[in-house]
């Protein structure tokens, strides 16, 4: 790096938010009274002062070009006083005190290809990870899966057809950077990792590779007179922790890295406590560019939920009410032995009662 430096780094941490707030937000900061959802994609917030603020929310591809971002800025400059924000789900939001701006913005957003929606009882954008585009350990592509799914759920994003909020996530490896969600789509490996003994002999501290495995399946060994490691196939449960930790270990496989679907994850504390998702489909092929098998499973789940869920009832709460047996029947998915927990606190998930539905 031989560029001449003209600027001394300022370790400022998070960007200051004062200059980023819309004036109506600033004025009524902490003094909001209530909100309404006038129609899909639109929020209306009313402040104690009587001020009203409309929000228009739209979906984005998340992997944005500066071109798209500039277009968003154009819209914000035109209708939202030069401010905009993003949600934790990659949606963009424009706020305005002027009701007439709302429809104009909706039009312009749709014109540049961004659907307005994601507010209220609908499917919002998918929590989203890197995949083949950028990550160093992905078995599939985050953005591609999301695009394929959201094409199918386009109407469910734009309209109120769901009993309540439906939140999705995708993750391109078993680590699940996408997080718990009503429906989570996550890579599931089905074979133990392979060791490249050449690389390990050259680059790796052996203890690290050995220490990273939660079930002690990695053991030091000697290959061609060189120190290396081996994977005990009996113990390994295909978690992939070693893969991220050691460059000589590879677990991804074009055929054997499959996709699993998990339902009933919930982060909010509304009504029921937050809960982890449960595995309901696995062994789905990793099938780019459109992942039809995954899409089909999601369709089945959401069709059943749409039909039976009650207002304010989240997907997992619906299943709690009707029972897992009914869920599998209604969605046409198949409960398999592997879906019985076998990991650390497995016993606490068993049916330790005579309660049973027939």
């Amino acid at each position, binding site marked *: 790096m031989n560029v001449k430096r003209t600027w001394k780094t300022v370790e*400022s941490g*998070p960007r200051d938010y004062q200059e980023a707030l819309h004036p109506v937000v600033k004025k009524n900061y902490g003094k909001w009274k209530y909100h309404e959802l006038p129609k899909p994609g639109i929020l209306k917030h009313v402040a104690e002062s009587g001020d009203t603020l409309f929000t228009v929310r739209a979906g984005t591809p998340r992997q944005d070009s500066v071109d798209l971002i500039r277009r968003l800025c154009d819209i914000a400059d035109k209708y939202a006083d030069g*401010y905009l924000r993003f949600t934790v789900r990659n949606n963009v939001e424009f706020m305005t005190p002027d009701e007439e701006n709302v429809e104009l913005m909706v039009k312009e957003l749709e014109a540049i290809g961004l659907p307005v929606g994601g507010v209220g009882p609908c499917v919002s954008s998918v929590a989203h990870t890197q995949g083949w585009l950028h990550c160093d350990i992905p078995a599939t592509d985050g953005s591609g899966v999301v695009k394929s799914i959201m094409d199918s759920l386009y109407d469910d994003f734009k309209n109120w057809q769901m009993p309540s909020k439906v939140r999705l996530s995708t993750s391109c490896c078993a680590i699940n950077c996408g997080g718990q969600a009503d429906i989570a789509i996550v890579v599931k490996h089905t074979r133990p990792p392979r060791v490249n003994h050449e690389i390990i002999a050259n680059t790796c501290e052996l203890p690290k590779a050995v220490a990273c495995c939660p079930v002690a399946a990695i053991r030091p060994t000697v290959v061609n007179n060189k120190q290396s490691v081996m994977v005990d196939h009996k113990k390994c449960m295909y978690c992939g922790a070693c893969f991220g930790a050691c460059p000589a270990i590879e677990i991804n496989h074009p055929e054997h890295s499959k996709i699993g679907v998990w339902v009933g994850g919930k982060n909010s504390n509304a009504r029921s406590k937050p809960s982890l998702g449960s595995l309901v489909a696995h062994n789905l092929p990793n099938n780019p560019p459109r992942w039809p098998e995954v899409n089909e499973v999601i369709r089945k789940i959401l069709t059943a939920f749409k039909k039976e869920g009650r207002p304010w009832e989240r997907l997992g709460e619906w299943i709690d009410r009707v029972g897992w047996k009914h869920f599998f029947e209604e969605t046409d998915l198949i409960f398999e032995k592997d879906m019985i927990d076998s990991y650390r606190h497995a016993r606490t998930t068993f049916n330790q009662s005579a309660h049973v539905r027939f």
Partner: protein
Amino acid sequence: MDEIDMDNEDEKKSSDQDKKFLNPTPMLDELEEGPWPSFITGIKELAERTKKPMLRGVMDQLEYSYQTRMGYWKGGLVMVRGYGSGVISRRTMIKDKIPEAAEFHTFRVQPAPALHYSTKMLRDLCDTWEKYGSGLITLHGQTGDIMLQGIEESKIQECFDAINQAGWDLGGAGPAMRTGVSCVGPARCENACYDTLKLHYRVLKYFTEDVHRPQYLYKFKFKFSGCPNDCSNSIFRSDLAVIGLWRDSIQMDSTEVLDWIEKNGTDSLVNNVINRCPTRAISLEHGEMVIDNKNCVRCMHCLNVMPRALSPGRERGVTVLVGGKNILKVGAMGCTMVVPFFKMDADEDVDKFIELCESIIDWWNDNGFEKERIGETIERVGLKQFLTGVGLEASVDMVAKPRSNPYYKSKY
């Protein structure tokens, strides 16, 4: 359509192609169909306009990934001066095949809390990024960063200096304090029980040193939600979750309650509000709604359904939860409540809170193993030991139920 026509079609396509900067990406092109905004269309447009070879390389590699169902990036170490993290290094594994994908490093940049922008801030960022980098930006990463994706190592310092000068700083990576996430909170939400933006700002500013220079056992994430709706997903996705709530009674506007009932009907009140309260703290008395606030667990449900009629109480603060994480190695863990109520009004409250966070992080760094999240440390060492170590009071709020086995060492 006969064969000759088809040939013509093909020729036409390939001659169109000739005019294009990008190589053919037939599989990726399928992601341009359908109504949802396509990231492929975006990248193609950007590439065709800017003609940046890096973008062509990235598209070629991505197409190759789609065809072979494997990823081809490898990590490495790329840094800006003085920092130990904040840049994610990516180099292709198949440089011989796709030399243009040689480098594709990413800046993690900390946005303003709750992801607010002025167009000026954003436009400037776009301009700088187009100048030095690929022009591709992720808004936002799951940990809340702006991700400026795609730059060569040689341009990194200069680019960083430029954005830093404009007021931006890098986010976390590696065994470090990570970028925080906060919900929109008081900026636009009537449920906010504390100032999520301010607390996020103050806390992350305080820990800036630890964001930039990884010196922890593993990553540590803060998330800030203004109320138990937890729009920042803190419970399973942060090491320390700060969730707003109130200690007194839900505020009820009786006129608005009656209005609501008139509009929605008593049936809806019973079915959608009363029957959904997790602790059955709401009852119908002489046609009116009565809340037993001692029994309310602050779940937010009734407030969500009746936002005009019900609001959080006046005595507001936060509850502090520790130890969430996702699945890797031990399975997902939810944050556990360790401080049921913490006042968060004055600046001194924030100071005290930061002190608490420091002692929590210190305890972890003293008691944890390498690559162990704090939730794992607490599970291994014990919640009681954690509380004692940090100097917190135990309370029954911290458990779903007291222990069912006698296997503990009593102090007496």
